[in-house]
């Protein structure tokens, strides 16, 4: 019997091979190393700091590039602190004649704001071939072409690398790159309004680019930018038109990170772009990490920058931070980890399973795996399930600085306009659509119902009764209670639509909602919405389209209701309230006010509020203005305020110093990993189940055996 013995042997082999962690998705060589494992869903498109804007990209760029400022890792509300600069710059104001004004001068008088930014000396770039110089100080790779690039497919293939000190010119060069004719910076037109001379530089560069042969390097140092100047080797000055107190927030984004001229030159040599050797693909920075492997289809690897200037872990934080162990590493040198591996994970199920198996150190929770991880306790407090706590998993929550809403098109004859009838119709709908139920069904409670555009944590958001929306909620027993559907029906009747019928013609009220299609659970979501409208006997027609078509409809004002969300650029109320600024209407000027809401009173308040600082003597005044503006919005109801999503992150017990932050993104340097603990638990959690293999073999035998027997019988039969 040769056959069964062979099968037995192979079975034995398989069993020995399956000792443990057969399902480890990483190479064996990486076990036991100080590596952080994480995942990303959508591939980053741009890593060039001029172009990258999306969240998928900032996960990487924030670790590599260092703009002059950053957010404090622990403090809340979010506070700006220096990153490469010596201090957070304080603007000086000048009027039209060039006279300096005091800091509290009225915004109307200010013609120019001047920011002087001084960076610390001694900061060095990551090793990179663009910096490599020969004995005479000339670049080693100064005149590459397609021929010389033969055999070079990645940045790591260049033999020589170099580094150099960070200087103010690098920051200036990057600001000029915002106007680069071949790059598309999302903030160019907006900054063109602010930074003096940037718009003009844009047109000059466009002209100059036209004269160059295609693909040739455009040396930005040949052109000057009026509003940005170098004061000395380490100091540069930015001049803005008017007053713009939100500008320092921009200085914490990669748009204002340094890009050295030699790097720009290096990447624009002929033959580089054909090999994907671009800044978009291989970023160069002074940050704690550098990108060593860029394979956005499967793996991105960040490694510790050996030239990092050094930084220490913060020693102060929010009140609860010390108890949470977030201050334990106070004063220790950053970063803690040697390497971070990001794997691409498009599907939610594998992502979640790998996290549970210990192969990702932290994970968000999708709506579907929520029940497994989290229990909403009595009184709405959130606790992890026992299963999770046994594994030592910790939960981090925070409300994201974003808002989701259903907007009315204020130009629409039925739902739009500030007439009392239309307003009442909108108010009735605001009551009828039960956001709390939405959050509990579709988001497992991972969000809080919005009462205004401002999410918690943003200046102007108030807790308790003062922050409630009196149009939609009653304040009962110390908490908000959504008004009853009867009240909504009454409002609807007053609006001229008793029982969803036009009071005069008897026509039923049919409303059209535009959404973008795609995404999970789409159908159930729409069914739910239809039911909400049906509560008021209003017929809802949902028109889902693809995103481009949706945008186009909004631009043309061809919608009645629409669904949208907004993610803040920076934690300031201006960044939310401008979405309803009447002078920025979508249809009128192509602005961001997709509802085309125009209320002169609101515009006046917004105009006053936006140029004020939240801290300092006029903070209280600003708060009062914001509350007044919000009260107007609540009454006019141009939006049905949806919810502010909460982000729930789970971290394994071996991951330390994790605090959820939604504004600062350069968090990787603070993370610490207990490698030994991870090894132990991973092994414990990933014992393979082997009996199915045995069963499969038995099944195979069970199939083959009758066949073999049958064959013998038949052979014998024919022989006879």
């Amino acid at each position, binding site marked *: 019997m040769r056959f069964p013995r062979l099968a037995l042997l192979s079975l034995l082999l398989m069993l020995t091979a399956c000792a443990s962690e057969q399902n480890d998705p990483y190479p064996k060589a990486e076990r036991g190393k100080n590596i952080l494992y994480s995942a990303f869903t959508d591939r980053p498109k741009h890593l060039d700091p001029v172009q990258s804007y999306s969240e998928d990209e900032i996960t990487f760029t924030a670790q590599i590039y260092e703009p002059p400022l950053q957010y404090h890792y622990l403090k809340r509300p979010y506070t700006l602190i220096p990153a490469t600069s010596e201090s957070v710059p304080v603007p000086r104001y000048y009027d039209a004649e060039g006279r300096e004004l005091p800091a509290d001068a009225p915004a109307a008088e200010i013609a120019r704001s001047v920011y002087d930014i001084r960076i610390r000396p001694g900061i060095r770039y990551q090793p990179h071939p663009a910096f490599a110089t020969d004995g005479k100080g000339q670049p080693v790779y100064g005149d590459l072409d397609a021929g010389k690039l033969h055999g070079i497919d990645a940045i790591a293939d260049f033999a020589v690398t170099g580094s150099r000190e960070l200087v103010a010119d690098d920051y200036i060069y990057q600001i000029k790159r915002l106007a680069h004719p071949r790059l598309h910076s999302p903030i160019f037109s907006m900054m063109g309004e602010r930074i003096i001379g940037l718009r003009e530089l844009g047109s000059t560069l466009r002209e100059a680019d036209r004269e160059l042969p295609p693909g040739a390097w455009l040396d930005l140092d040949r052109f000057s930018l009026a509003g940005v100047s170098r004061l000395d080797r380490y100091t540069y000055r930015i001049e803005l038109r008017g007053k713009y107190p939100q500008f320092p927030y921009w200085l914490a984004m990669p748009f204002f990170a340094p890009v050295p001229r030699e790097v720009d030159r290096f990447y624009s040599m002929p033959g580089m772009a054909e090999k994907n050797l671009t800044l978009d693909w291989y970023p160069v920075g002074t940050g704690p990490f550098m990108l060593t492997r860029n394979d956005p289809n499967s793996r991105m690897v960040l490694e510790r920058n050996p030239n990092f200037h050094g930084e220490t872990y913060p020693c102060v934080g929010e009140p609860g931070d010390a108890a949470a162990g977030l201050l334990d590493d106070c004063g220790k040198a950053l970063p803690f980890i040697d390497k971070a591996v990001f794997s691409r994970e498009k599907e*939610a*199920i594998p992502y*979640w*399973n790998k996290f549970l198996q210990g192969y990702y150190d932290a994970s968000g929770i*999708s709506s*579907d*795996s929520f*029940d*497994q991880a989290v*229990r*909403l*306790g*009595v*009184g*709405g407090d959130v606790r992890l399930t026992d*299963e999770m706590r046994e594994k030592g998993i910790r939960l981090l929550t925070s409300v994201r600085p974003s808002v989701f809403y259903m907007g009315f098109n204020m130009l629409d004859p039925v739902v739009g306009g500030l007439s009392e009838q239309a307003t009442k119709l909108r108010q009735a709908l605001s009551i009828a659509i039960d956001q709390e*139920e939405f959050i509990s*069904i*579709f988001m497992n409670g991972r969000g809080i119902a919005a009462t205004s555009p401002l999410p918690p944590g943003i200046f102007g958001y108030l807790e308790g009764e003062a922050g409630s929306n009196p149009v939609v909620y009653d304040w009962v*027993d110390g908490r908000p209670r959504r008004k009853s559907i009867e009240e909504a029906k009454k409002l609807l*009747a007053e609006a001229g639509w*008793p*029982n*969803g*019928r036009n*009071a005069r*013609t*008897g*026509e*039923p009220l*049919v409303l*059209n909602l535009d959404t973008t*299609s*795609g995404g*999970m*659970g*789409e*159908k*159930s*979501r*729409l*069914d*739910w919405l239809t*039911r909400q409208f049906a509560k008021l*006997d209003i*017929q*809802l*027609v*949902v*028109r*889902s*389209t*693809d995103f481009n*078509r949706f945008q186009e409809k909004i631009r043309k004002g061809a919608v009645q209701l629409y669904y949208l969300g907004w993610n803040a650029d920076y934690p300031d109320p201006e960044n939310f309230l401008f979405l309803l600024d009447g002078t920025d209407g979508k249809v009128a000027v192509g602005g961001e006010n997709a509802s085309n809401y125009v209320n002169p009173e609101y515009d006046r308040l917004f105009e006053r509020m936006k140029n004020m600082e939240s801290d300092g003597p006029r903070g209280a005044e600003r708060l009062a203005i914001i509350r007044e503006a919000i009260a107007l919005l609540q009454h006019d109801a141009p939006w049905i305020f949806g919810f502010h999503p909460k982000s729930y992150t789970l971290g394994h017990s071996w991951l330390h110093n994790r605090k959820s932050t939604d504004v600062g993104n350069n968090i990787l340097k603070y993370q610490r990993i207990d490698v030994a603990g991870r090894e132990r638990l991973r092994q414990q959690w990933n014992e393979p189940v082997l009996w199915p293999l045995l069963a499969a073999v038995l099944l195979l035998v069970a199939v083959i055996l009758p066949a073999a027997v049958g064959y013998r019988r038949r052979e014998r039969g024919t022989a006879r």
Partner: protein
Amino acid sequence: MAFLPVILWSDVLIWLLFATAAIFGWLSVRNPLWRTAWQRVGRSRAGMASATVLVVFVGVGLLDSIHYRPRLEEAAASAASGTSRQPPAYAVEVLSVLDAILTPLRTRNEKTYSEPLATRAYAKESIESRGADGQLQQSRDYPRLKHGGAHLGTDETQRDADIGQRLLRALALATLLWWALAAATAAGLARAESCTHEEAWRRIWHNESDFAWNAVLATIGVLLLVVLPLAALSFNYHVFGTDKVGQDVFYQVLKSVRTALVIGLVTTLVTLPLAIFLGVLAGYFRGWVDDLIQYLYTTLSSIPGVLLIAAAVLMMQVLIDNHPQWFATAAERADLRLLALCFILGVTSWTGLCRLLRGETLKLRELEYIQAAQAFGVADLRIIGRHILPNLMHIVIIALVMDFSSLVLAEAVLSYVGIGVDPTMISFGTMINNARMELAREPMVWWSLAAAFVFMFTLVLAANLLADAVRDAFDPRIAGSA
């Protein structure tokens, strides 16, 4: 009128297909060659059993293909104030006869997930109640379902007994019905073959009649045993549980049947004319016509199918989005998208059949009697109509039944990729797409996926078995040897 009939395009096509099938059946009876072929199908037990199952599915699909918009109730306020007569207004929601029959299933929505036959929800929730002292009290429990087992009242322990009772009653009824049916069949057969009842009974069960009555009766028996208990339970419980927004899963699988049928059948309306016309043309006329048609189908079939479908579906979507005025209701939009999908699937799948028909025609036109007809100067069209087309019919029928199941399977995959039916339309694909995330939940939500699996599997399996029977009966090579 209490309702406004709505005629969707897919309804028209479905009923058209139904009529065509009827006419074809009548023609088949008159054509001796086809009649014997169909009789061969009738003798196949597997074929007839699956045909019985398919009839049930088609019945559900046809019921779901008569649409109307219910009339809205008169606004009470204005009626009281005595204003002038309002014009009747109709809901924007389009219902079908099936929806009307299944009204309890359609409207009895829970809040969210519940297990099959459950009386309580699947996840615990904080429940608030006012205690005796007027204080708010909170507790955490599985909340009682609004509709599932609502007739039990507070006495939930009675559930098992209640279900058992209903099951028993349904089973008894099923047995009774089946005996009646079987007896009637025997009586009918006895009259047709002029023999005694006992003899007819014996013939049925000993496989001695010309029709696989035993298979049909056995299948009907099984169907009755499944359908009646389901029906008996479904009006008071959620037999297959509820989904994320609390909709009855049983209702959804029933609605999916029509989508699958439309995809599987209407597509052939596009495929057949194209394939037959071009295939015969190419094979009969040869020369440049042949070259041109060959070029056309080689080009089309060399484009990767999914890419072609994706591009075309996106294109239709744009067309639909740009013309919202074409559609009075969301159902009409979804319907057009469904038809577009059928059309596109048809365009991508006619090439194979066309190639087959071309080859067969090439062979046929060399036959002596056709050569003779040509020599006598009979018009080409007449030759094609009289001699060539009838001889191609077996290929067409085989292709038709074989394609059905693959189209139903294709729909699921396409909807999963996002280029299938409209997301608001219930189909097996959208159900699977929504349900596959639920497997990762803990505790696992398995019933949506399981229900979709069972129904889809049954439908496709029946279609495949019938296709086999039809092929065996019509394929001259196989039929000759059998």
